[in-house]
């Protein structure tokens, strides 16, 4: 089980207690360049950055384009940079931020409009057999009902793009496949479910794949879903070094030394 933190006792957003200033990145197709618009937003103690953006959309500027769906960190659509840090808008709380809050789209993924990304390029990075389901590892004491081999659950990765946005290597090159895709590949190697792991390892064993990472661990820091992409990349290197599809020594750089935290 995964229950470490105590209940957070907080007040409702219906009680507006203060005004915060939001600087919001704006860009529409055809614009010569992007700019920032400022909005004063009434917020309560439990307001999230997504709540504030929705308030702007409903009450101030209906042309503001934002992405959201689930409102509870399960769909991954509201990935943003808030005051320069990657986070999901729905669980980034205004009370933890300053009086002026700058909201920008994720980096390293093309922008469609305002805070909305064109996710096609993000998905193009993934290996073809993209894992969705896995065996459930929680509640190990539970015995599945008769007629069921085992419980199953969805993969942790919510395809939000925050790891790619935070990655310093992805900022310098479009060629690097990036942490999300490599983490997905490593999950397949770990739990193949019929997939051809030789193919996946070959895909990962490329200069622009697993060996391009410089182990900055920014991706793991940014991940809101506990995927730990950097650790997964290191695990994948371990598999490749110890006996992947073909034995080979990795290209050694200074950054590879002491890659494990």
């Amino acid at each position, binding site marked *: 089980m995964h229950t470490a933190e105590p209940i957070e006792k907080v007040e409702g957003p219906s009680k507006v207690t203060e005004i915060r200033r939001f600087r919001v990145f704006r860009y529409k197709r055809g614009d010569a360049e992007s700019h920032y618009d400022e909005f004063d937003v009434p917020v309560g103690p439990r307001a999230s950055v997504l709540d504030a953006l929705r308030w702007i959309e409903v009450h101030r500027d209906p042309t503001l384009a934002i992405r959201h769906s689930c409102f509870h960190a399960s769909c991954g659509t509201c990935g943003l940079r808030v005051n320069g840090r990657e986070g999901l808008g729905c669980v980034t709380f205004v009370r933890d931020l300053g009086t002026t809050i700058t909201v920008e789209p994720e980096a390293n993924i093309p922008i469609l409009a305002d805070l909305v990304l064109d996710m096609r390029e993000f998905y193009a990075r993934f290996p073809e057999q993209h894992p969705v389901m896995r065996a459930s590892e929680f509640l190990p004491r539970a015995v*599945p009902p008769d007629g069921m081999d085992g419980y199953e659950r969805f993969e942790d990765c919510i395809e939000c793009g925050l790891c790619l946005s935070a990655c310093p290597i992805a900022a310098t090159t479009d060629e690097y496949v990036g942490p999300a895709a490599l983490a997905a590949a490593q999950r397949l190697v770990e739990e193949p479910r019929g997939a051809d792991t030789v193919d996946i390892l070959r895909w990962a064993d490329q200069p622009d794949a697993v060996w391009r990472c410089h182990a900055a661990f920014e991706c793991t820091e940014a991940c809101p879903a506990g995927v730990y992409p950097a650790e997964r990349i290191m695990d994948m290197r371990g598999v490749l070094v110890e006996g992947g599809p073909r034995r080979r020594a990795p290209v050694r750089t200074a950054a590879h030394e002491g890659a494990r935290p």
Partner: protein
Amino acid sequence: MASDARDAHVLIVGGGGTGGALAHDLTLRGVRVTLVERGEFTSGTTGRHHGLLHSGARYAVGDKESAVECIEENMILRRIAPGSFEENDGLFVAVTDEDMAYHDDFVRSCKECGIPVQELRPDEALRLEPLLNPELKAAVRVPDATMDAMRMPLRFFATAQYNGAELFNYMEVVDLILSNGGVGGAMVHDRVTNEQRQIRADITINATGPWSERIAAMASVDVPIRPSPGVLLALRGRLCNMVVNRMHRSGDGDIVVPQRALSIVGTSSWTVEDPDDLDVPDDHIEKMYEEGAKLIPAVRQAGFRAAWSAARPLIGSRGDADTGRELSRTFKTFDHAETDGVEGFVTITGGKATTLRGMAQLCADVVCRKLGIDAECRTRDTILLPHTAFYAATR
């Protein structure tokens, strides 16, 4: 009207589960489809739900029509969307004498609706779900499942797009085009370019869920929809692998749904005028903790992740209901030529995520009849593309 029925163009307003399933259904029948959604697909109500694939058991006693719809669609969706469900089943758990008084009626009603049930003793239920309230008196296993509330519906969008439907997100309908006593399409504002344009269509379908009333008003038509929000609470940690439901009449906080490494507790119910401005009242969140803990005591200790509201589109007239609980979860298509004398305009609403395909079939039947297209529904047997295909195709 297009001279050849095969050239007919249908405009769907609303990119939730219903709109996506409808685009898929009509495209398979050979109709040219354009869909517009003002935000991201599934951003209105669909993506915000707790991710339950209903067995129908929740409605078996009080709303048999919905219960039967649910079990039928449950089985169809498992077949056409493999890999989109945690097929871990669900438990209905009785924790009080009052719940036990409901037990026999519940089991009998499920059987009448064709919902498979397995009655379990408390020790058997605890073996399946060790964190259940140890004071439970009985449990019934039913074929509930869970889904990713966005990615399962996205498979309908992916398949429709692959088959030629044109799907536009960030495109908001600002007005309907009215001509000759009917609706001839819509004026849209493109949030990507900040430009407006007209989309002409032979039939315009209002699939905007709790926003149906607002779109219908653009054609001076009234649809009996009550936006009925509910509060949901996401807790850190997976407290169960099966869906855990309270065995009693629908009430607040009577379900815990495992979702990735989270547990979702839902939900409450009230009615509002404006589905854009949803509150998340404190007392509703507290109610989720209180009632959820009666099913799984660890709800009280679990870490908070998020609390939010989602607006259901329930069918019912103003004044019919205060809380929304009294309203049926079934769905309905309104052909406004019949109900209001307005040609070329259809509203599909009500229902729930589990019944999205069935809702689409019913509405597409009406639309095809109006267009003079004789084509069978093929969505029962068409396996959907994976959600990732939605991002692969060129738009």
